[in-house]
């Protein structure tokens, strides 16, 4: 029986030497772009599917499959660019596929999590096989930026094809095999270069596998000290780019302590972000003052921010009615991730220095996130990942967007901020819109629904047996389009013997 099992599961088919093995912390959960919401699935689906619109320099929407014209504030016409790509089954992508994809998302029976934002679409027409007309229920200048979902073949949608299991797109890579839930193999259509994604949850084991050359690429999701450790070895190269994932401290505005603006400002002045970045994040981050970084088209070029100033923090606390004998106590919720816990402990210490007692509560991710979504918190730390469109402001800060309607989890309510959001959404002038969003972010920094912390950098550690990988600005996997195999990766890199004599 054991021998039978041995032969059944013990010997997996070996892949060609040129296969690049990519170590992931989380496996992609859904390869159907209509349903995928996690970052890994979204990044992988970019390789498997093409989309109408992408984001370019400054996170401005740019044509991908199609160029567009705004025929009226509620009518956008998209023209597919020639030559239109082929799906992996050989069929040519057409406007009918675009319509079928978005109609499917808008169908409530599909239960797509992307329907919310796309409900602004009133109707989709396809006058020719190259042209798609989107009619909106109301004007929205940000609309083209919403059309970033991978296009599926219309006939397969109609047949109920299991895209989550057998993706069929028109992207630069095609799906080959999913031997089990922890592994996924895709192949580059241009030259047959294979990439195997391997889920390795433990960061230490991911590090060891990279050292042993069992995987060739790791991107993000490693503790900073492991990144430094790996980057010091020959056989591994480190690539690093500024990121836009916004880490922040969130507050419950209904709470008698952190609901006070003075207390939040005291917290902002009490946290030494520069030193945390330098010593804990090993310099792989930059201080954030707003949700969007300066290079984003709607991001503020410069904001005054809150400098590390414990004396000012103490003064603000005193003004709020707290002193040595009457110290505020704040419960700080975070996840059980050891690195996040370490950051929480440092923040706890720094707040203690100005006279704030902090109790840390760490929960597994599901419980923690569930608590945050339901507003069961006083203070928490989290990050917005992959945010590109300024519609996030309404979703996260508008007074009407408290859960379950939106993600204003701290019940922030500011009439001026609400007004700025509405004005920015209604204007069709990009310049004016930019000014309004920048003013809004200055207002948010002044009233502090969040204390901005930092934007963490993206990094990739690549085995030197492969070349050509370029880390992208938003941490996606598009660099796999250029990656090339250099030689025999079968022998472990020489440095290992020196590492462990």
């Amino acid at each position, binding site marked *: 029986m054991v021998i039978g*099992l041995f032969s059944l599961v013990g010997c*997996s088919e070996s892949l060609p030497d040129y296969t690049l093995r990519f170590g992931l912390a989380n496996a992609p959960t859904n390869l159907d772009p209509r349903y995928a919401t996690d970052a890994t699935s979204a990044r992988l689906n970019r390789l498997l599917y093409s989309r109408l619109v992408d984001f370019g320099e400054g996170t401005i929407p740019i044509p991908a499959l199609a160029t567009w014209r705004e025929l009226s504030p509620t009518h956008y016409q998209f023209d597919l660019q020639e030559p239109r790509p082929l799906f992996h089954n050989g069929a040519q992508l057409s406007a009918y596929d675009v319509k079928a994809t978005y109609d499917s998302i808008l169908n409530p029976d599909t239960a797509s999590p992307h329907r919310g934002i796309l409900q602004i679409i009133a109707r989709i027409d396809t006058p020719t096989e190259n042209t798609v007309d989107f009619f909106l229920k109301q004007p929205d200048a940000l609309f083209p930026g919403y059309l970033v979902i991978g296009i599926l073949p219309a006939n397969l949608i109609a047949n109920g094809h299991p895209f989550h299991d057998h993706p069929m797109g028109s992207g630069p890579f095609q799906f080959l095999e999913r031997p*089990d839930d922890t592994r996924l193999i895709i192949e580059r259509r241009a030259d047959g270069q294979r990439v195997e994604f391997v889920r390795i949850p433990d960061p230490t*084991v991911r590090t060891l596998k990279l050292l*042993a050359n*069992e995987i060739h690429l790791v991107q993000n999701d490693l503790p900073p000290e492991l990144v430094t450790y790996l980057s010091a070895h020959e056989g591994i190269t480190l690539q690093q780019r500024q990121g836009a994932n916004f880490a922040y401290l969130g507050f419950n505005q209904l709470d008698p302590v952190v609901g006070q603006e003075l207390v939040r400002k005291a917290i902002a002045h009490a946290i030494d972000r520069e030193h945390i970045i330098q010593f804990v994040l090993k310099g792989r981050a930059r201080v954030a003052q707003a949700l969007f970084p300066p290079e984003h088209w709607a991001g503020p070029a410069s904001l005054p921010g809150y400098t590390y100033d414990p004396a000012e923090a103490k003064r603000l606390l005193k003004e709020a009615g707290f002193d040595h004998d009457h110290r505020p106590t704040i419960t700080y919720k975070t996840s059980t991730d050891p690195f996040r816990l370490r950051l929480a402990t440092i923040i706890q210490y720094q707040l203690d220095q100005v006279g704030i007692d902090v109790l840390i509560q760490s929960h597994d991710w599901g419980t923690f996130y569930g608590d945050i979504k339901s507003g069961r918190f006083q203070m928490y730390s989290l990050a917005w990942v992959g945010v590109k469109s300024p519609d996030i402001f309404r979703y996260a800060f508008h007074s009407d967007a408290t859960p379950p309607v939106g993600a204003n989890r701290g019940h922030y309510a500011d009439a001026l901020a609400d007004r700025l959001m509405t004005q920015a959404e209604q204007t069709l002038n990009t310049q004016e819109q930019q000014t309004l969003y920048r003013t809004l972010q200055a207002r948010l920094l002044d009233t502090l629904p969040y204390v901005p912390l930092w934007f963490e950098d993206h990094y990739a550690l690549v085995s030197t047996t492969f070349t050509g990988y370029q880390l992208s600005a938003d941490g996606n996997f598009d660099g796999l389009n250029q990656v090339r195999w250099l030689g025999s990766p079968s022998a472990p890199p020489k440095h290992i013997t020196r590492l462990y004599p």
Partner: protein
Amino acid sequence: MTHFLVTRILSAMLAILGVICLVFLLIHLIPGDPVEVMLGESAQPTDKESLRHALGLNLPLHQQWWIYFKGLLHLDLGTSLFSGRAIVDLLIERIPATLYLSLVSLIVAIGLALPLGLVAAVRQHTPLDYGAMGFALFGMSIPNFWMGPLLILVGALWLGWFPVSGQEGWNSVVLPALTLGTAMAAILARMIRSSVLEVLGEDFMRTARAKGLSSTRAVLHHALPNALLPILTLLGLQLGGLLGGAVITETVFAWPGLGLLMIEAIQQRDYPVVQAAVLCISVTYIMVNLLTDLLYAWLDPRIQFTTD
């Protein structure tokens, strides 16, 4: 014997029914909404309501249970909220890996524990005994999350004999099996020692020696078979635990088994998968215990007489 068998199987079926009810209720009692998990925070209330209706979550609990139970009878465990895949397929993918790891770990455990326990019992209060029991203490004290990376460092990086993790070739099972097997062997060796020691003082052992049997033959042919019953109970429990998914070891070694599946599902709040995995683990545990009981009766006929 038939009566014994029927009684045991019926009680196991009753236990499984209890587990089904408990798992169903627990999943419905814990905080969280599967509809929100599927649609996300930005979903409209009307969409949430229509999906709740489509999934049958608006029905009274007893009706939901009945639908769930009927599904189970057809081996329909539902679909994953995240991947959209049939849960039966997910389990079919993962169970062989767990089964394989469990059996190899058990072989490692028995292979280590049997000689250690026997030597410790036969050479009681000698350096061999202290050495064997020291090893057992060592094995019990080291947590798997530490033992695993240590074995990876030595076996995969220093020696380069085995892959670091995953299921990549015939030898990839060695390190996770050693991690699990040594911990099990430690407990098992102590149990073998105490059981054999107890038997060594029995009259039939004195008789065996008196009729001229060598010490080895007396231990292997008379002491060990008579000491097997408590060892078998422990083995059954350990195997049940292993088949239920060695969560930590599977996570450390990225072993694509049931334990890793359950951890991922818990982290993502993929309720139907958690429900199915817990059910699968519970049923496996009950079945292994049933088999142990039956084996017990087969090894020691007195047990079935007692029951009859």
